[in-house]
């Protein structure tokens, strides 16, 4: 969350613009329909904050493709994080499970950036307390690598090889006023922090 408060330094350059993001989401939607053979039992769950907006956009595209109603919700993972004690207590975001529930369905988790994989680990734990899906898949807009856990995405918008000194910032119109993926360089590398 901190990265978004830093003004994108002069080094931050867009790697995806609004039309790219729209195209990428359309492709992911088609991939979901293909892999899930029609997406009848798919439930999309976005991880706050930006994952929720991406999930809603994906749901719209899926509804266009399949012509059916696509259940979409949000899954807050704050209470399941493994680094809670490293920082002050955080404000919680909303968990909204669609009325259909997730029992026996195909849950597609949606997030903006896949990095260490720890967020997704927390999301899987959170999901386990809510129900037992038939399967869980993961869709991300950007995969920047550097996994710390054995987790991979099923649908990737863009693979973005990065160094640890680089920052990846996703901006979405709903939250930031415009659509873009920005690649920047951390201005001051924390000494010994990584």
């Amino acid at each position, binding site marked *: 969350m901190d990265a978004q408060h830093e003004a994108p330094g002069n080094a931050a350059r867009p790697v995806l613009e609004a039309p790219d993001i729209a195209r990428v989401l359309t492709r992911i939607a088609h991939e979901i329909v293909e892999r899930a053979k029609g997406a009848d039992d798919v439930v999309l769950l976005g991880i706050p904050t930006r994952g929720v907006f991406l999930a809603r956009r994906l749901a719209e595209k899926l509804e266009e493709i399949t012509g059916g109603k696509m259940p979409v919700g949000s899954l807050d993972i704050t209470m399941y994080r493994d680094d809670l*004690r490293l920082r002050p207590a955080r404000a919680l975001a909303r968990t909204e499970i669609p009325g259909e529930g997730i029992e026996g369905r195909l849950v597609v988790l949606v997030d903006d950036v896949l990095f260490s994989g720890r967020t997704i680990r927390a999301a899987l734990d959170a999901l386990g307390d809510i129900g037992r899906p038939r399967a869980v898949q993961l869709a991300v807009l950007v995969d920047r690598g550097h996994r710390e856990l054995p987790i991979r995405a099923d649908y990737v918008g863009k693979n973005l090889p990065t160094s640890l000194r680089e920052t990846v910032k996703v901006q979405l119109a709903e939250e930031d006023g415009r659509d873009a993926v920005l690649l920047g360089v951390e201005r001051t590398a924390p000494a010994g922090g990584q």
Partner: protein
Amino acid sequence: MKRHLISAADLTRDDAVLILDTAEEMARVADRPIKKLPTLRGRTVVNLFFEDSTRTRISFEAAAKRLSADVINFSAKGSSVSKGESLKDTALTLEAMGADAVVIRHGASGAPYRLATSGWIDGAVVNAGDGTHEHPTQALLDAFTMRRRLVGADSGLGRDLEGRRITIVGDILHSRVARSNVHLLNTLGAHVTLVAPPTLVPVGVEQWPCEISYGLDEVLPESDAVMMLRVQRERMNAAYFPTEREYSRRYGLDADRMARMPEHAIVMHPGPMVRGMEITAEVADSDRCTVVEQVANGVSIRMAVLYLLLGGYESAAPAAPSRTEENK
């Protein structure tokens, strides 16, 4: 958030709204098949109760357990306190056992403050009622109930109680609930009016951010919420009013009086209620009475308080920079 919760007056508007918003998310956990979060695993919460209490202790216990904390209940009866142990020695014992938070109820006003500031323990201190001083989590759950009923559960998120008129009726003198509510509701932008016989109004009340009235009937038509308090006979060592019947006639809430309240207004009571004294059975059992709701909301509020006090890092030292910041 501060490290302790001693007084509702210590909370800023933003602190209070953060607690209410957090409680709103906690309330949703109660609707799930598994009503438990792993957040406080490995943390120990001690319920240190020097005074009798069922609902507050059970509420804190349920809240801590839903967050997966370990709970140790300690009541003064049947403990070494009845053998003459001091608060300090009890605190040192708890510290030696590694308590991360101490929830304390004590008959002496100021006991939680002493515990928090004496250096006897390192953990967070939560005031669960001290003498006639404060009961901040009760005020928070009352404000939460008001926000849900008067503003709305979802539309209330991030909002306070600006402009709402709250009336608190009864034994203000002995009520820690009233004192905490006055401070918190004022912080949240509500107008508070206290209604009580002159003998049950504390000295110095003119310093409080509220109005005082001696007549219930004038205030009722413009109240958004009316909170009835129990007459605390166990704390009374003198006659504060002639007869119970007279008190009940002048300051009790019955169906006639309730009918004079605005359509949307709610009736609240921190419990335990004495039916027939400050509230009639008809009012207590009506839809507008939120007593049971307040108990359920109490668990959500206490989960929020425990999470915000214990969920982050322990020391005040800045956290080590995390690699995974962008993942939110």
